[in-house]
Structure formats: structure tokens, C-alpha cells
């Protein structure tokens, strides 16, 4: 308690004996202007680096978009390009039908029985 009282007395003594900051003597507008003038080159560099960053990002994004567009155009040209003259042009249905027929090949191909029958026929004709 006694120490707290002493602290208060010491604080009062310090405040009375120490000159207060002369806030009324400061030209605040001038100080503000000095500070902001000194900061201008730093802020300008930040603006440039910010826009540079945006520009570089937009540049990268632009390149990617251009590449994607080129790829899309190439793909579209391949899909819609008419079949060259002289070459057969198959529809999806035709390709599928051909694949099914190829799958059924072994069934349609001559069997051993057919070969025997052909040989018998050949033998009977020669007789």
C-alpha cells in the first residue's frame, strides 16, 4: 500500500518535472507531408511490382489460354475435316459392325467338317 502510494507520488513528480511533448508546436500537416513525400518512391515501387505481378500472371494466363485455344481449334479441325477423296469414310455404326463381324470370324470361317466335305466332293468328281 505504502509502495503504491510512493509510486503515485513518484509518477506525479516525474510528470511535473518532465516537460510534456510540445504537441502544439508541431506542424502536423508539414510532418505528415514530409513522411508521405519520403514514402512516395517506396509506394510507387510497390504499385509497379503489384502491377508487374498482375501483368505477369495475366501474361501466363494469356499464354495458357492461347495454347488451349490452339489445341481446341486443332481438335475441331480434325473432327469436322471431310474425308479425303478416294478414301473410305466410315461412320461409327460401320466401324462397330465391322468389329462385330471380325469377332464372329471364326464361326463364319471354313471348319474342318467343311474341308472334309470339299475333299469328298472333289474325290467323287474325279471318279
Amino acid at each position, binding site marked *: 500500500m505504502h509502495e503504491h502510494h510512493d509510486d503515485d507520488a513518484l509518477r506525479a513528480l516525474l510528470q511535473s518535472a518532465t516537460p510534456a511533448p510540445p504537441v502544439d508546436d508541431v506542424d502536423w500537416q508539414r*510532418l505528415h507531408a514530409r513522411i508521405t513525400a*519520403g514514402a512516395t518512391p517506396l509506394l510507387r515501387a510497390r504499385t509497379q511490382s503489384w502491377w508487374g505481378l498482375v501483368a505477369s500472371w495475366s501474361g501466363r494466363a494469356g499464354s495458357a489460354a492461347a495454347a488451349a485455344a490452339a489445341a481446341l481449334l486443332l481438335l475441331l479441325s480434325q473432327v469436322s475435316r471431310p474425308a479425303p477423296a478416294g478414301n473410305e469414310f466410315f461412320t461409327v455404326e460401320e466401324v462397330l459392325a465391322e468389329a462385330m463381324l471380325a469377332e464372329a470370324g471364326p464361326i463364319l470361317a471354313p471348319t474342318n467338317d467343311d474341308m472334309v466335305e470339299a475333299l469328298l466332293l472333289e474325290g467323287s468328281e474325279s471318279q
Partner: protein
Amino acid sequence: MQDALLVGRVLRGDAEAYGELVSRHMRQAFAIAYRILEHREDAEDAVQDAFIRALERIDQLGPGGRFRPWMLRIVVNTALNSRRRRGVRRTEAVLDTMAADGSLPDEAAERADLRARLSAALDALPEKQRTIVQLADLEHMRSAEIGEILELSDGTVRWHLHEARRALRQALSPVREDT
């Protein structure tokens, strides 16, 4: 607008946001610099340097960082560096005040003597303790706030404050018996 939002704009080079931060904090920055340097022009120079340094390092503040204590820390460090470099030019300030307050010659002499003793006692304190006393007893800052500025724990600030006051009481005891 909150300081954090202004800081975000300053990071993108917004001069208006920076100007607003300066307007908000330059008075307290000046008061603290003045307490340390005890000279108006030196304090103004320190404030200017501190705000420029703050802008140079503003990326270090981080997204959740509080601008005010961070800024005032730079002010304290700048003013302390200036004080170490140039010394204190307080004599000028004391003479100015003596001439301006219009007190009687005896009172003025007594005050001048008290100021001289206080200045000597404050100067004799370790730098950290002197700064803590100035921020606590002259700028009315709480120990937690001082701790945030000086990057010390609340308890450490209180301990330094206790030690500093004890040393000042001892140094000023002959004066205090008279008053």
C-alpha cells in the same frame, strides 16, 4: 477502416492508405519519440524515419499482425538509436521551458534543479528500464501494452518498472524530503 485493412492496401502501394495510417499514429509516435529524445526536432526526425522504416518492412508485419504496437516498437528503436548516436539535447528544452513558464527565479531554479536530478536519475537507469518508466509513468501505458511494444512479457515489464521506480526513489530521496 481498421488498421489491418489499411496495411493490406499499403502492401499494394496505396498512398492514401499509408497517409491514413500516418495520420492515425504520428501523434503518439511523436510523444514517445519525444520522451526518449527530449528534443522536438529530433523527435520529428525519428518519427519520419520510423514511418519510412515501417513501410520498408511492412511485409514482415504478417496478416494477423497489429500495426500500432509494431509501429511504436519501430519508433522506440529508432529514437533509442538516435539517442545513442547523437546523445540527448535536452538542455535546450529545459531552458525553453524555464523561459516560457514565467515562474519566479527561486521556483525556476528549484524546478531546474529537480529536472536536473530527475534527468540524471533517469539517465543512470538501464535503457530498457528508462524506456519502460517513460512509457508507463509519462505516456500512461499499461504494462501489457508496453510488453507488446518492447516484446517483453507483462511480468518482465512490471519487474523492470518496479526496479526503475525503486532506483529513482533512491536517487531523488533528498529532493522528495524537501517537497
